[in-house]
Protein backbone atom coordinates (compact mmCIF):
# COMPACT_ATOMS: atom_id res chain seq x y z
CA UNK A 1 0.00 0.00 0.00
CA UNK A 2 1.20 3.48 -0.85
CA UNK A 3 -0.18 5.87 1.76
CA UNK A 4 -1.83 9.01 0.39
CA UNK A 5 0.21 12.16 0.33
CA UNK A 6 -0.29 14.19 3.45
CA UNK A 7 0.52 17.61 2.13
CA UNK A 8 1.07 19.18 5.56
CA UNK A 9 3.03 18.30 8.67
CA UNK A 10 1.15 17.03 11.74
CA UNK A 11 0.93 20.44 13.40
CA UNK A 12 -0.43 22.15 10.29
CA UNK A 13 -2.92 19.34 9.73
CA UNK A 14 -4.29 19.79 13.26
CA UNK A 15 -4.35 23.57 12.82
CA UNK A 16 -6.58 23.07 9.75
CA UNK A 17 -9.11 21.02 11.71
CA UNK A 18 -12.20 23.21 12.17
CA UNK A 19 -13.14 21.74 15.55
CA UNK A 20 -9.70 22.51 16.99
CA UNK A 21 -9.67 26.09 15.72
CA UNK A 22 -10.09 27.64 19.22
CA UNK A 23 -6.84 26.04 20.47
CA UNK A 24 -3.69 28.10 20.99
CA UNK A 25 -0.48 27.34 19.02
CA UNK A 26 0.97 25.81 22.22
CA UNK A 27 -1.98 23.45 22.53
CA UNK A 28 -1.72 22.47 18.84
CA UNK A 29 1.99 21.75 19.29
CA UNK A 30 1.28 19.64 22.38
CA UNK A 31 -1.41 17.72 20.51
CA UNK A 32 0.97 17.13 17.58
CA UNK A 33 3.52 15.70 20.03
CA UNK A 34 0.93 13.18 21.24
CA UNK A 35 -0.44 12.09 17.84
CA UNK A 36 0.41 8.91 16.06
CA UNK A 37 0.00 8.43 12.34
CA UNK A 38 -2.19 5.51 11.21
CA UNK A 39 -2.33 4.40 7.59
CA UNK A 40 -5.37 2.58 6.26
CA UNK A 41 -6.00 0.74 3.02
CA UNK A 42 -9.27 1.41 1.23
CA UNK A 43 -11.97 -0.61 2.98
CA UNK A 44 -10.01 -1.01 6.21
CA UNK A 45 -11.91 -0.35 9.45
CA UNK A 46 -10.71 2.32 11.87
CA UNK A 47 -13.24 1.63 14.62
CA UNK A 48 -16.47 -0.31 15.06
CA UNK A 49 -19.91 0.85 16.13
CA UNK A 50 -20.71 0.31 19.83
CA UNK A 51 -17.10 -0.34 20.85
CA UNK A 52 -15.38 1.53 23.68
CA UNK A 53 -14.01 4.82 22.36
CA UNK A 54 -10.48 5.74 23.47
CA UNK A 55 -9.22 7.75 20.52
CA UNK A 56 -10.29 10.49 18.18
CA UNK A 57 -8.89 10.99 14.70
CA UNK A 58 -8.09 13.77 12.27
CA UNK A 59 -7.86 12.85 8.59
CA UNK A 60 -4.46 13.86 7.22
CA UNK A 61 -5.00 12.38 3.75
CA UNK A 62 -7.68 10.31 2.02
CA UNK A 63 -11.31 9.85 2.99
CA UNK A 64 -13.30 7.92 5.59
CA UNK A 65 -16.91 6.76 5.64
CA UNK A 66 -18.86 6.84 8.89
CA UNK A 67 -21.62 4.25 8.72
CA UNK A 68 -24.40 2.95 10.92
CA UNK A 69 -25.45 -0.67 10.86
CA UNK A 70 -28.87 -2.10 11.77
CA UNK A 71 -28.94 -4.97 14.26
CA UNK A 72 -29.39 -7.26 11.22
CA UNK A 73 -26.19 -5.88 9.71
CA UNK A 74 -27.73 -3.65 7.04
CA UNK A 75 -25.36 -0.71 6.51
CA UNK A 76 -26.65 2.83 6.21
CA UNK A 77 -24.06 5.31 5.08
CA UNK A 78 -24.15 8.41 7.21
CA UNK A 79 -21.34 10.74 6.34
CA UNK A 80 -18.08 11.02 4.47
CA UNK A 81 -15.12 12.53 6.32
CA UNK A 82 -12.42 14.26 4.28
CA UNK A 83 -9.08 15.88 4.89
CA UNK A 84 -8.68 17.81 8.18
CA UNK A 85 -12.04 16.64 9.50
CA UNK A 86 -12.32 15.00 12.90
CA UNK A 87 -14.06 11.73 13.73
CA UNK A 88 -14.33 9.56 16.81
CA UNK A 89 -15.61 12.46 18.95
CA UNK A 90 -17.54 9.96 21.09
CA UNK A 91 -14.23 9.23 22.85
CA UNK A 92 -14.38 12.70 24.44
CA UNK A 93 -17.81 12.44 26.05
CA UNK A 94 -19.71 9.98 28.20
CA UNK A 95 -20.55 7.14 27.65
CA UNK A 96 -17.35 6.88 25.51
CA UNK A 97 -18.81 4.43 23.00
CA UNK A 98 -18.51 4.96 19.24
CA UNK A 99 -21.95 5.77 17.81
CA UNK A 100 -21.07 4.51 14.31
CA UNK A 101 -18.29 2.65 12.52
CA UNK A 102 -15.52 4.27 10.49
CA UNK A 103 -13.57 2.81 7.61
CA UNK A 104 -11.34 4.12 4.84
CA UNK A 105 -13.00 4.91 1.50
CA UNK A 106 -9.60 5.48 -0.13
CA UNK A 107 -6.10 4.67 1.06
CA UNK A 108 -5.93 7.13 3.93
CA UNK A 109 -3.75 8.51 6.68
CA UNK A 110 -5.21 9.65 9.99
CA UNK A 111 -3.74 11.20 13.10
CA UNK A 112 -4.84 9.26 16.18
CA UNK A 113 -5.07 11.12 19.48
CA UNK A 114 -5.83 9.55 22.84
CA UNK A 115 -8.96 11.20 24.30
CA UNK A 116 -7.36 11.34 27.77
CA UNK A 117 -4.32 13.18 26.42
CA UNK A 118 -6.57 15.43 24.37
CA UNK A 119 -8.53 16.40 27.47
CA UNK A 120 -5.35 17.16 29.43
CA UNK A 121 -4.26 19.47 26.63
CA UNK A 122 -7.70 21.12 26.34
CA UNK A 123 -7.62 21.88 30.06
CA UNK A 124 -4.22 23.57 29.94
CA UNK A 125 -6.20 26.56 28.62
CA UNK A 126 -9.75 25.80 29.74
CA UNK A 127 -11.35 28.78 27.98
CA UNK A 128 -10.10 27.37 24.66
CA UNK A 129 -11.09 23.88 25.82
CA UNK A 130 -14.58 25.22 26.55
CA UNK A 131 -14.86 26.57 23.00
CA UNK A 132 -13.78 23.21 21.53
CA UNK A 133 -16.33 21.38 23.68
CA UNK A 134 -19.01 23.89 22.64
CA UNK A 135 -18.21 23.27 18.97
CA UNK A 136 -18.35 19.55 19.65
CA UNK A 137 -21.76 19.86 21.36
CA UNK A 138 -22.94 21.82 18.29
CA UNK A 139 -21.62 19.13 15.95
CA UNK A 140 -23.36 16.34 17.89
CA UNK A 141 -26.54 18.42 17.95
CA UNK A 142 -26.44 18.67 14.13
CA UNK A 143 -26.06 14.86 13.96
CA UNK A 144 -29.01 14.55 16.34
CA UNK A 145 -31.15 16.80 14.15
CA UNK A 146 -30.22 14.76 11.05
CA UNK A 147 -31.00 11.51 12.83
CA UNK A 148 -34.38 12.84 13.98
CA UNK A 149 -35.14 13.85 10.40
CA UNK A 150 -34.18 10.34 9.32
CA UNK A 151 -36.57 8.98 11.96
CA UNK A 152 -39.36 11.20 10.66
CA UNK A 153 -38.73 9.97 7.11
CA UNK A 154 -38.94 6.38 8.28
CA UNK A 155 -42.17 7.07 10.16
CA UNK A 156 -43.90 9.00 7.40
CA UNK A 157 -45.92 6.93 4.94
Amino acid at each position, binding site marked *: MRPPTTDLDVESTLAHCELLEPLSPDQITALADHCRMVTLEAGEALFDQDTVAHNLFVVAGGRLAIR*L*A*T*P*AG*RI*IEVVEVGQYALCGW*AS*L*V*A*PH*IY*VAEASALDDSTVLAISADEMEDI*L*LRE*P*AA*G*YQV*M*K*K*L*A*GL*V*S*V*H*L*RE*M*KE*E*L*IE*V*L*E*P
Partner: protein
Amino acid sequence: MRPPTTALTAEATLRLCELLRPLSDRQIGELAACATLRSLRRGDTLFDQNDEAHDFFVVATGRVAVRMTASGGESIGVFDASQYRLFGWSSLVAPHEYTSGATAVEDSTVYVIPAAAAEDIFLLEPFAGYEVMKRLAGDISVRLRNVRTEVLGLLNG
Protein backbone atom coordinates in the same frame (compact mmCIF):
# COMPACT_ATOMS: atom_id res chain seq x y z
CA MET B 1 -54.18 30.26 36.99
CA ARG B 2 -52.59 29.36 40.27
CA PRO B 3 -49.00 28.38 39.49
CA PRO B 4 -47.69 25.28 41.24
CA THR B 5 -45.65 25.92 44.34
CA THR B 6 -41.97 26.36 43.68
CA ALA B 7 -40.49 24.75 46.73
CA LEU B 8 -37.02 26.24 46.32
CA THR B 9 -35.33 29.50 45.42
CA ALA B 10 -33.82 30.00 41.97
CA GLU B 11 -30.36 29.38 43.39
CA ALA B 12 -31.38 26.15 45.12
CA THR B 13 -33.24 24.94 42.02
CA LEU B 14 -30.25 25.55 39.76
CA ARG B 15 -27.97 23.89 42.31
CA LEU B 16 -30.06 20.73 41.94
CA CYS B 17 -29.78 20.72 38.15
CA GLU B 18 -27.46 17.83 37.24
CA LEU B 19 -26.02 19.48 34.14
CA LEU B 20 -24.98 22.59 36.11
CA ARG B 21 -23.39 20.62 38.94
CA PRO B 22 -19.78 21.53 37.98
CA LEU B 23 -20.49 25.26 38.52
CA SER B 24 -19.21 27.06 41.62
CA ASP B 25 -21.55 28.69 44.15
CA ARG B 26 -20.60 32.06 42.71
CA GLN B 27 -21.55 30.95 39.19
CA ILE B 28 -24.84 29.48 40.40
CA GLY B 29 -25.59 32.74 42.22
CA GLU B 30 -24.93 34.77 39.08
CA LEU B 31 -27.05 32.43 36.94
CA ALA B 32 -29.89 32.70 39.47
CA ALA B 33 -29.62 36.49 39.34
CA CYS B 34 -30.29 36.53 35.60
CA ALA B 35 -33.00 33.81 35.67
CA THR B 36 -36.67 34.75 35.48
CA LEU B 37 -39.51 32.53 36.63
CA ARG B 38 -42.23 31.75 34.09
CA SER B 39 -45.52 30.02 34.83
CA LEU B 40 -47.11 27.70 32.28
CA ARG B 41 -50.55 26.15 32.19
CA ARG B 42 -50.90 22.58 31.05
CA GLY B 43 -50.72 22.64 27.24
CA ASP B 44 -48.90 26.00 27.00
CA THR B 45 -46.09 26.04 24.46
CA LEU B 46 -42.78 27.43 25.61
CA PHE B 47 -41.06 27.30 22.22
CA ASP B 48 -41.58 25.70 18.84
CA GLN B 49 -39.35 23.41 16.85
CA ASN B 50 -36.97 25.39 14.57
CA ASP B 51 -37.47 28.65 16.54
CA GLU B 52 -34.33 30.68 17.05
CA ALA B 53 -32.95 29.61 20.43
CA HIS B 54 -31.96 32.40 22.84
CA ASP B 55 -32.81 30.87 26.24
CA PHE B 56 -32.55 27.61 28.09
CA PHE B 57 -34.81 26.48 30.92
CA VAL B 58 -34.69 24.63 34.21
CA VAL B 59 -37.93 23.11 35.51
CA ALA B 60 -38.79 24.44 38.98
CA THR B 61 -42.10 22.56 39.26
CA GLY B 62 -44.23 20.45 36.97
CA ARG B 63 -43.22 18.76 33.75
CA VAL B 64 -42.49 19.91 30.21
CA ALA B 65 -42.60 17.65 27.14
CA VAL B 66 -39.88 18.20 24.56
CA ARG B 67 -41.01 16.72 21.27
CA MET B 68 -40.15 16.81 17.58
CA THR B 69 -43.06 16.82 15.17
CA ALA B 70 -43.07 15.43 11.64
CA SER B 71 -44.78 17.36 8.85
CA GLY B 72 -47.57 14.77 8.98
CA GLY B 73 -48.13 15.68 12.62
CA GLU B 74 -46.60 12.58 14.20
CA SER B 75 -44.84 13.45 17.42
CA ILE B 76 -41.52 11.85 18.25
CA GLY B 77 -41.08 11.45 21.97
CA VAL B 78 -37.78 12.94 22.96
CA PHE B 79 -38.21 13.33 26.70
CA ASP B 80 -40.30 14.82 29.48
CA ALA B 81 -38.31 17.35 31.51
CA SER B 82 -39.23 17.05 35.17
CA GLN B 83 -38.16 19.07 38.20
CA TYR B 84 -34.58 20.44 38.09
CA ARG B 85 -34.07 19.19 34.53
CA LEU B 86 -32.50 21.53 31.96
CA PHE B 87 -33.87 21.76 28.42
CA GLY B 88 -33.57 24.18 25.50
CA TRP B 89 -29.81 23.56 25.36
CA SER B 90 -29.86 24.36 21.62
CA SER B 91 -29.57 28.00 22.72
CA LEU B 92 -26.04 27.24 23.94
CA VAL B 93 -24.64 25.74 20.75
CA ALA B 94 -24.60 26.52 17.04
CA PRO B 95 -26.83 26.73 15.03
CA HIS B 96 -28.88 28.14 17.99
CA GLU B 97 -32.17 26.73 16.76
CA TYR B 98 -34.46 24.54 18.88
CA THR B 99 -34.44 20.99 17.51
CA SER B 100 -37.80 20.23 19.18
CA GLY B 101 -40.80 22.06 20.60
CA ALA B 102 -41.58 22.29 24.35
CA THR B 103 -45.06 22.16 25.90
CA ALA B 104 -46.13 21.96 29.53
CA VAL B 105 -47.57 18.52 30.37
CA GLU B 106 -49.04 19.91 33.60
CA ASP B 107 -49.15 23.34 35.25
CA SER B 108 -45.46 24.14 35.59
CA THR B 109 -42.93 26.82 36.46
CA VAL B 110 -39.59 27.11 34.73
CA TYR B 111 -36.57 29.33 35.20
CA VAL B 112 -35.70 31.07 31.94
CA ILE B 113 -31.98 31.77 31.49
CA PRO B 114 -30.58 33.79 28.58
CA ALA B 115 -27.87 31.70 26.89
CA ALA B 116 -25.57 34.64 26.17
CA ALA B 117 -25.51 35.68 29.84
CA ALA B 118 -25.02 32.07 30.90
CA GLU B 119 -22.00 31.70 28.65
CA ASP B 120 -20.36 34.75 30.23
CA ILE B 121 -20.97 33.16 33.63
CA PHE B 122 -19.61 29.77 32.53
CA LEU B 123 -16.44 31.50 31.34
CA LEU B 124 -15.88 33.25 34.69
CA GLU B 125 -14.44 29.88 35.70
CA PRO B 126 -13.70 28.19 32.40
CA PHE B 127 -12.71 24.85 33.89
CA ALA B 128 -16.23 24.53 35.35
CA GLY B 129 -17.68 25.86 32.09
CA TYR B 130 -15.74 23.18 30.20
CA GLU B 131 -17.21 20.48 32.44
CA VAL B 132 -20.76 21.77 31.86
CA MET B 133 -20.22 21.80 28.09
CA LYS B 134 -18.72 18.30 28.23
CA ARG B 135 -21.78 17.04 30.14
CA LEU B 136 -24.02 18.73 27.60
CA ALA B 137 -22.17 17.12 24.65
CA GLY B 138 -22.50 13.78 26.47
CA ASP B 139 -26.25 14.29 26.99
CA ILE B 140 -26.79 15.15 23.33
CA SER B 141 -24.72 12.14 22.34
CA VAL B 142 -26.92 9.87 24.48
CA ARG B 143 -30.01 11.31 22.80
CA LEU B 144 -28.37 10.77 19.41
CA ARG B 145 -27.72 7.16 20.38
CA ASN B 146 -31.36 6.70 21.48
CA VAL B 147 -32.80 8.17 18.27
CA ARG B 148 -30.32 6.14 16.25
CA THR B 149 -31.46 2.96 17.97
CA GLU B 150 -35.08 3.89 17.21
CA VAL B 151 -34.26 4.51 13.50
CA LEU B 152 -32.26 1.32 13.15
CA GLY B 153 -34.97 -0.69 14.91
CA LEU B 154 -37.59 0.64 12.47
CA LEU B 155 -35.41 0.02 9.43
CA ASN B 156 -34.74 -3.47 10.65
CA GLY B 157 -38.41 -4.20 11.22
